[in-house]
Structure formats: C-alpha cells, structure tokens
C-alpha cells in the first residue's frame, strides 16, 4: 500500500467516524500521567504502538528512526485536532483495523521502506491520536502530551529491542507476537461489529 493511500485511508476513517463515549483513567499523579496511563490501558492504542515498534525493529535501524518521530508528532497533532473538533467520535473499528494491519505486517515480516513505514506511523498516529483527543475528557494539554510521549517511548523501546535481536528464533518470536496482535485486532473488530459488551 502506498504512503498516500495509507494517509487517505486514515483521513477517510476520521471523516466517517460516529460519536464517541470514553473516559480517562485517573492515576492520581496528575494530568500528564493520566495521559500515559490512558495509552497503556487502551488495548487498541497499546497494541498498535507495539505492533508498529515490532515492525520498525524488524525492518532495521533506518526504518525504526523514520517511524519514531512521525508517530509521536502525528499522535500529538491528532490529539489536538480531536480535542478541538471532537465531533468525529466512535473510531474503535478503524483503530482495530490499524491493529490488524500492524500485526499482519509484523507476522508477514513485510520489508517496508523508510517512507512507507513513516507514512504508516503518520496514519496510525493521526488516527489513534484523534480518537484519544476526541474521547479524553477533560482534554488537558498535559494529558494529550503524556499520551503522545508514551507512544514515542513505547515505539522507540520496542523497535530498539527488536533491532538488537540477532537470533533467528528471537526474530521468529517477534513474528508470532505480530500474529497475536493481528488476532486480537480482528477480534476487537468483531466486538465492534457486534457491539462490545
């Protein structure tokens, strides 16, 4: 899939979205940490970031570098747009699809070029960031920054961990993890189509 198509698909998902209803986990440590916790405790956000990190790591250092910053910046931009124009809303199905896509690419060990990986990171960041911005209440700037920074740290650590893996078995384990992520994403999509209990 070309970079333009990925971005177009993400934008289309934003435009076609229906209203949302979510709330923020209160950690008691302040708005910034509430944002961090939100990303870690939201399965779709966490799995997409981990999937992207695994993929970037499998594709090598250059691709990993091309993924980290676009993801975090797009996440923050998406958060700000979502917080300012939260009319979008129920993005669970597109977010689940992004989890499937990231997991599938890891399982297939898709050899993404730097540009394609960067475009994928942009699309994932915009989509999930928008969903966070539109649903986190109150949309405090520190909370949104916390979520974006958490995405950056997670994708960086995951990619760095995978880049360092040399053993074939360890890299195969990464692909298996990708298939688990894709599987959970598919089931998340099923729950959305059915109506999550």
């Amino acid at each position, binding site marked *: 899939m070309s970079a333009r198509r990925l971005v177009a698909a993400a934008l289309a998902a934003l435009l076609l979205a229906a209203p949302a209803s979510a709330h923020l986990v209160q950690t008691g440590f302040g708005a910034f940490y509430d944002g961090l916790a939100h990303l870690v405790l939201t399965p779709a956000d966490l799995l997409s970031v981990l999937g992207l990190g695994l993929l970037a790591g499998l594709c090598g250092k250059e691709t990993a570098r091309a993924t980290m910053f676009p993801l975090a910046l797009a996440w923050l931009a998406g958060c700000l747009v979502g917080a300012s124009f939260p009319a979008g809303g129920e993005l669970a199905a597109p977010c689940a699809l992004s989890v499937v896509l990231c997991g*599938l690419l890891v399982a297939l060990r898709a050899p993404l070029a730097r540009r394609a990986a960067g475009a994928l990171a942009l699309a994932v960041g915009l989509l999930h960031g928008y969903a966070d911005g539109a649903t986190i209440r109150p949309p405090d700037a520190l909370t949104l920054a916390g979520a974006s920074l958490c995405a950056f740290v997670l994708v960086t650590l995951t990619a760095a961990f995978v880049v360092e893996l040399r053993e074939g078995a360890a890299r195969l384990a990464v692909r298996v993890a990708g298939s688990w992520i894709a599987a959970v994403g598919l089931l998340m999509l099923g*729950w959305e189509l059915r109506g999550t209990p």
Partner: protein
Amino acid sequence: MSALALLAHDETGAAAGLLAGLRHPISGADHVLAMLAVGVWGAQLGAPYVWALPVAFPMVMALGGMLGLVGVALPGVELGIALSALVLGALVVAEARPPVWVAAGIVGLFALFHGHAHGTELPAGTSGVLYSVGFVVSTGTLHALGIALGLLHRFERGRLVLRGAGAVVAAGGAYFLWEALA
C-alpha cells in the same frame, strides 16, 4: 475463632474478561490437545513449519472468532474441533511433511472452528476485548508448550515419545468425535 469476616467478591468487567479468555482454551481437553499438537507438529518438522503454523493458527482462529461474534453460523463446530485433535494427532504420529502452505491450510481450517467456539462463548458481563486478548495469549502459550515438547525430536527416543503423544492426541480426538456424533 478470632478471624474477621471475609469480604471477597467475584471479578467483574475487565478482570473477569481477561481471566475468562485465559481460561477458555484450557477449559476443554479438546482445545488443549489440538493446540499442543499444532506446536509439536511444527517442532517435529522444523523451520519454516515451526513458526508458520503458530503464526497461521491465531490469525485464522481470530477470523473464526469474529465470525462467531457477528453471528455468522459455522456448521459442525464441535465436529471440527474433535476432528482437529484426531487429524493433528495422526499427523504427529506420521510426522507428515506436506508443503508449508498445505500444513498452514490444515491448521488454519481447524483454527476456524476453535475460534468460532471461543467467539460465541463469552460469559455475560465481561470485557470482550480483554477476553479476546486472554484467549489469544492462552492459545499461543499452548502452542509454545507444544513446541517446547517438540524439542524432544532431537533425540532418538524423544521422537518415539512424540509419536506416542500424537497417538494419545489422536485417540482423544476419536473419543471427542464419538461424543460429538452421539
């Protein structure tokens, strides 16, 4: 005599969903035997089977789960699950080595039935997403256990043990098939 009253409660919501998901694949011997057999068969055959089968299984299983969730009926789910243990056990006994895509297709076909069963059996009042995470992790762990058992294949006697284990799985599958048909 001096103990205070116990105040305990059942898990609900997210915790119950995750626990139910983790528990579901290990709650039935039919699931457990088939999952272990997938791992053992992959380990017997080595690369690329050892990773292709555990990668194919969860994804197709999730597809089956999704079909179950959205209400698409799949005929003969219990038969399919029983057959999976019978066929996979027989493949382990025979150390059959079909082309990778055929092996992945066989495993994928059976994964559809297992996933459909998981997808339609969510306990009421639990988190569906975390239930899904739980049963994917549990299934994958059973595969990993099967692969670990399959490491015995390096040894002469280990191969015999694995074939014997395959025969046990196949016998279990025959029993479940009998039960499903009865």
